């Protein structure tokens, strides 16, 4: 059964410097509050795994928490570049960042293989691209037909972190809407943390929902609003204006650093972070 503990305790107990950590959520339910707690507790040398690095990894990379990034699309969706990611890759600021780059289909296959406890996953992909020579992928012949396919090594992060709408008091978790690769990352990771919008007496079944039994999760932590500026279906919308504003905040090293200090490092938790944004205007 999952331990229901505070987010501060969960990050302190689960995540160590130098580990392979995946924070997933495909546009929806991105675990921003957990990412912010990693920053507050000063984790360093992490290998960060995520299909779409997004604003959350721009923040972690810009503060020097990561030494390596495993990813498949590193942009600000619908807006443009992730400027802190670009600065790290193009100029090594604040620390150099090693890249292991995949396609979305490749990463999704690798997560599914991890959840299935297989050493690799198989797909039709990568062949003929320049990425093939630049990443961890190998050609494999189908033993039945002889077709050449691509093998990707499975993803088994030390810690998998996702955000969900609800948990019950036994730590069973339910999430719905766009469910991304959350099930795969929780089942493929050695240890897992799920942050939730609320803890309810009993989960009410929802169409299309994923239910993760508490015994398959290491820890659950309450973090209402913890996906912002991403969203939690049925709770609050994606803060698209914030994503647009992030382009300005993240473009300049000093503006970025001051913003992170004011809204993340100098706040104690997700509640204070959200209140700091209200006080300062949406994203001052």
């Amino acid at each position, binding site marked *: 059964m999952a331990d229901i503990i505070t987010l501060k305790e969960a990050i302190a107990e689960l995540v160590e410097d130098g580990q392979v950590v995946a924070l997933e959520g*495909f*546009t*929806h339910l991105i675990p921003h509050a957990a990412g912010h707690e990693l920053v507050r507790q000063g984790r360093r040398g992490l290998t960060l795994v995520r*299909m*779409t690095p997004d604003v959350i990894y721009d923040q972690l990379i810009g503060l020097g928490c990561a030494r390596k990034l495993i*990813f*498949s*699309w*590193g*942009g600000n*969706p*619908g*807006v443009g*570049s*992730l400027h802190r*990611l*670009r600065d790290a*890759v*193009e100029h090594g600021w604040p620390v150099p960042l090693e890249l292991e*780059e995949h*396609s*979305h*289909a490749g990463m*999704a*296959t690798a*997560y*599914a293989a991890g959840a299935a406890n297989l050493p690799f996953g198989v*797909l*039709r*992909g*990568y*062949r*003929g*691209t*320049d*990425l093939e020579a*630049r990443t961890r992928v190998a050609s494999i012949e189908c033993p039945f037909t002889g*077709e*050449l*396919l691509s093998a990707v090594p499975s993803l088994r992060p030390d810690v998998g972190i996702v955000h969900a709408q609800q948990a019950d008091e036994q730590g069973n978790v339910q999430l719905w*809407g*766009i*469910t*991304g*690769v959350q*099930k*795969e990352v929780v089942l493929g990771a050695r240890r897992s943390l799920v942050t939730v919008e609320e803890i309810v007496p009993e989960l009410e079944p929802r169409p*299309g929902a*994923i239910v993760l039994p508490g015994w398959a999760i290491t820890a659950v932590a309450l973090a209402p609003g913890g996906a912002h500026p991403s*969203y939690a*279906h049925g709770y609050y*919308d*994606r803060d*698209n*204006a914030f*994503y*647009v504003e992030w382009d300005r905040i993240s473009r300049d090293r000093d503006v970025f650093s001051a913003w992170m200090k004011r809204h993340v490092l100098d706040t104690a938790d997700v509640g204070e972070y959200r209140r700091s944004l209200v006080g300062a205007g949406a994203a001052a």
Partner: protein
Amino acid sequence: MTGYEAGEMMAVAAARRLRDGMACFVGIGSPSRAANLARATHAPRCVLIYESGTIGAKPKHLPLSIGDGELAETADAVVSVPEIFAYWLQGGRIDVGFLGAAQIDRFGNLNSTVIGDYDRPKVRLPGGGGAPEIAASCKETFVMLRQSPRTFVPKLDFRSTVGFGDGPGARERLGFTGAGVTAVISDLGVLEPDPESCELTLTSVHPGVTVDEARSATGWELRVADALATGEPPSEGELAALRALKTVSEENG
């Protein structure tokens, strides 16, 4: 006819390529705008599929991201990301992939990864994302890209996505199931692959665009079809529908 911008002509020309009832895997940005225009005009039963796992999304607003909540709320089905790529895309169920890119070459190969050297990039772009397998497995692929010598290049800085590789036979050798890039819609016209050489050939120019303009906006010696067509300008209905497509924040702002 009222005035319109080159970008609007590009969106309209791209939308017209989608046939009603097609299942379309949509990239964010200009492809999503064109696909939603098609759904609002001549192709109301066009099935929009976004890589977030939303199948048959019918958004009223233009999504800013491929995972906006409105896509899930209006979808026929929402599936996981591993499922959308494995069962639906690789499974061969998608008619057309609709992509953008930073660079394209004469064989329709795309770069969305890096400008300059991969290890010492001048500009690090977001990367391939869903595009490599979309172009590999969709029955055909449309590309939207503004035409200039910086975008239509003789040699890609990085081949993120395979169109026709090095030419005839390359897709078959790679084991790709789809037909590859069948149309490139730019702000100047439409390019289609030559059936024999696979080389992108200018088959249509937008109204008011000359062949010389298209040639000088292309980084290789552009082939021009013998039967070069001139596209129809946007109709009043198309322009009105296009201009009515707005993101939620555009509508509120």
